């Protein structure tokens, strides 16, 4: 019996001890009318060998395209040590550290993670992870409503330049509690959130404003001005940031005069494989004053009976298992394993490594943009500075172009016209440190071919 150790002798002895004649009898409290028939729709068992072969065949079907898609998930090199350690049984098969004394490994790792996230974002405290960046932003919005006691409106300004899936996810999660999201347009020339569009909210009750840096187009926002505007109008400021970019970019804790109130983001770029979208993790950091409004687990350092330091879950009164209906969130299981991977990733790359990843990614994307700019019919959509993504405007629908690239083994970018029909055919592309100059050349050639356009060189 796969994964069941019982021998026939074991079963007999156990049934005797219980005092029943059969395993079936153990289910005698279930009303007969409720009993199910056999699960005919489930295929017969495969051995590990067979499933291994099947999965290898399926993996081969997916192939390994040369990837230039970003749009919220980024291909970075992951040091081999990261997952070699993360998949160690003691990490992989432990659970939430409810028994602190038997979970010091997990707890100390979280404490180190919290420190890294706080330092990266220049905030005061971090939690132990949320599900992902998108749902993390939803949690941040809900948290802002709790934390901004002066605001009654539960009304949040949401730039249109924020990742469209994030916006959908925030809507799906937070609208149930009656939150209202007001869209802030972007400047069609620069791609930045339009500061002047904020004028229409002047004097109104705004609970919070969301700022994504870089925004969905890869464009760098004027985060200082946006933050200042928010604070000047009694709003809390929520930053949604790419963690890699923080090696180079001003961290949310330093935006404007006093920094943002809540910083969240998708943790995937920090050592987590793309893997069709998950598992990733969301990070969240805030100021100490708001810590009791923060969702998710938090670890603190304390002392043991002998006065020696140790780590434990703390501020649990915020959480569902204590506070139930009044908890800051319903989150229970989080993304511990991914957070662990990120902690190890950051320890290995260090500040120097992260800076190099960020700058190489930026430079490669600039090179990519300039390589494709020589193709007739391809133009950069926006003028403001970019991080490691750039929106290209094409002279024809994006879908067929991507199909063409796919046929050549290239994952050629994200068709952003689905989300921004007003921009016409636009393609969001990304090159990270994983791309070489040859790769960029390959891409440019393939794109030119797909557009049927000879490249001007």
């Amino acid at each position: 019996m796969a994964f069941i150790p019982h021998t026939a002798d074991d079963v007999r002895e156990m049934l005797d001890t219980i005092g029943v004649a059969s395993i079936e009898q153990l289910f005698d409290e279930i009303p007969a009318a409720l009993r199910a028939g056999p699960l005919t729709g489930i295929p017969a068992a495969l051995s590990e060998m067979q499933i291994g072969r099947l999965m290898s065949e399926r993996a081969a079907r997916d192939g390994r395209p040369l990837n230039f898609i970003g749009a919220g998930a980024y291909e970075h090199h992951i040091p081999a040590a990261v997952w070699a350690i993360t998949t160690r049984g003691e990490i992989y098969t432990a659970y939430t550290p409810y028994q602190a004394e038997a979970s010091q490994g997990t707890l100390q790792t979280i404490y180190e993670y919290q420190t890294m996230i706080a330092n990266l974002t220049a905030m005061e405290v971090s939690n132990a992870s949320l599900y992902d960046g998108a749902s993390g932003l939803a949690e941040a919005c809900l948290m802002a409503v709790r934390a901004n006691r002066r605001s009654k409106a539960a009304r949040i300004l949401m730039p249109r330049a924020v990742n469209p899936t994030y916006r959908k996810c925030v809507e799906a999660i937070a609208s149930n509690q009656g939150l209202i999201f007001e869209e802030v347009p972007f400047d069609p020339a620069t791609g930045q959130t339009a500061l002047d569009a904020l004028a229409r909210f002047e004097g109104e009750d705004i609970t919070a404003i969301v700022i994504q840096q870089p925004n969905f187009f890869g464009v760098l926002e004027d985060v200082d001005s946006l933050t200042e505007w928010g604070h000047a109008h009694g709003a809390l400021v929520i930053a949604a940031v790419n963690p890699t970019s923080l090696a180079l970019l001003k961290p949310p804790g330093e935006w404007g005069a006093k920094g943002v109130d809540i910083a969240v983001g998708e943790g995937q770029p920090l050592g987590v494989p793309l893997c069709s979208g998950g598992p990733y993790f969301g990070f969240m950091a805030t100021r100490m004053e708001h810590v009791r409004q923060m969702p998710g687990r938090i670890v603190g350092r304390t002392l043991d009976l002998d006065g020696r330091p140790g780590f434990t879950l703390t501020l649990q009164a915020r959480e569902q298992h204590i506070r139930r209906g009044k908890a800051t969130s319903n989150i229970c299981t989080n993304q511990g394993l991914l957070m662990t991977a990120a902690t190890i990733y950051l320890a290995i790359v260090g500040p120097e490594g992260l800076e190099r990843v960020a700058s190489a990614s930026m430079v490669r994307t600039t090179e990519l943009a300039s390589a494709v700019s020589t193709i007739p019919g391809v133009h950069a959509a926006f003028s403001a500075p970019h991080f490691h993504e750039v929106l290209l405007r094409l002279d024809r629908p994006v879908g067929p172009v991507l199909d063409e690239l796919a046929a050549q083994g290239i994952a050629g970018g994200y068709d952003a016209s689905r989300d921004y029909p007003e921009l016409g055919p636009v393609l969001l592309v990304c090159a990270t440190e994983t791309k070489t100059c040859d790769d960029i050349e390959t891409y440019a050639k393939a794109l030119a071919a797909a557009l049927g356009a000879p490249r001007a060189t």
Partner: protein
Amino acid sequence: MTSTPISAVVAPREPTIFDLSRPGRCAQAQLPPALAADIPAALRRRRRPLLPEVSELQAVRHYTRLSQLNFSIDTHFYPLGSCTMKYNPRGCNQYAMLPEFLGRHPLAPAVQGQGYLACMHELQEMLKEVTGMQGVSLTPMAGAQGEFAGVAMIRAYHHARGDFERTEVIVPEAAHGTNPATATMCGMKVIEIPCNADGDCDIEALRKVVGPRTAGIMLTNPSTLGVFERHIAELRALVHDAGGLLYYDGANLNAILGKVRPGDMGFDVIHMNLHKTFSTPHGGGGPGAGAVGVAARLLPYLPIPVVGREGDKYRYLEERDLPQSIGRLSGFMGNAGVLLRAYIYMRMIGREGMQRIGEYATLNANYLQARFRQEGFELAYPSRRATHEFILTMKHSARDLGVTAMDFAKRLLDFGYHAPTTYFPLLVPECLLIEPTETEAKEALDGFVGAMVAIKKEAAVDAARLKGAPHTLPVRRLDDVRAAKQLDLIWKPAA
């Protein structure tokens, strides 16, 4: 001759990675080329973040050593009730981590993901089969998010029918904390109802609260009391007749796999914890996967994306396919890698295995329960069968000897056993919720009983030793009150 105490030379606890850091140190082999990025001065970071500067060896050694401080399934019996800490087959990890799967971008075109999508579609179908539901969405990232999706669908269903009055969700008091928390997150009011002395729902209490404001009821079955709810038929009739829907918290699905199907029992929606029943790793706190299954009337509301099949081609069903969907709950489609692991596990278990899991999980729990009864421990529901788990209460030991469930739990660690879940469910005093799972051998169960018996004896003669436990772990009992009062949440350099 004086003797230095041995404990003085026990390898010290591991310093933090920041204590190991030295300015300028780095893991060079991990650095990409140094390229100069051009960033407007106003947007540039001024000071480098304080991140550890260590060698690759230091990082590897540090996290390897830290990992050794953990109990885990791979090292210890881990009967944490309600968490289904069963063996996580290594094959699931190996094959889910094939380079093609790991490298696939979530937005890569469907043609570059037919292998992956085929797995996901089959997983949806298998989950429909084991639950008896009509549709499944894999996107929720843990049980709690599955609950959220479920309640949001119930809400969307009522709203779609123009019924905006149903703002109450009924939750038995034994429910997991995520149930009421979820209801709140969905903007619902939580109405608690009690359980009776046998652990079943108090049907009379339910009758009193059910009505036109009832959006639905969230039922965990087997309940967190470790028993099978025997009044499902009445309960269903009451709630459905009042126009409410039935939510099944399927976190405890392990106990009933192949025995009952929530869909057959008339439930409208269920979430499953794939990280429990389908054995994906718990990872020190996550990730999970909280797939939801629904009855026909909730199909239009499933969270997106869902994997659709046309002929032998697979693709995501999105906004245009499911316009009434409650929407998206994640940036892409949830914890894909976890879903792959669950898929592999289910294929390895197969049809017959799926039936056996519940049987042997139940056998193990009932055997343990019987052994504890023999040894004079007090059961919370002595008249009931255990399901996949059951509850001991230490209330007499707490009253008579001052030795609490927590003291037993901590002392168990010294014996090399992870503690059961303590003080949950909240309504049984001094409780230990014990879930052995089907993957543990009889010897492990016997060893665990032996340890509990030894501790019980010790409690009578040396309560102080229990209250001081654990004694053999990297730390002794930690001061949680201090942790909450003198918050030390991030490492800071010595002043």
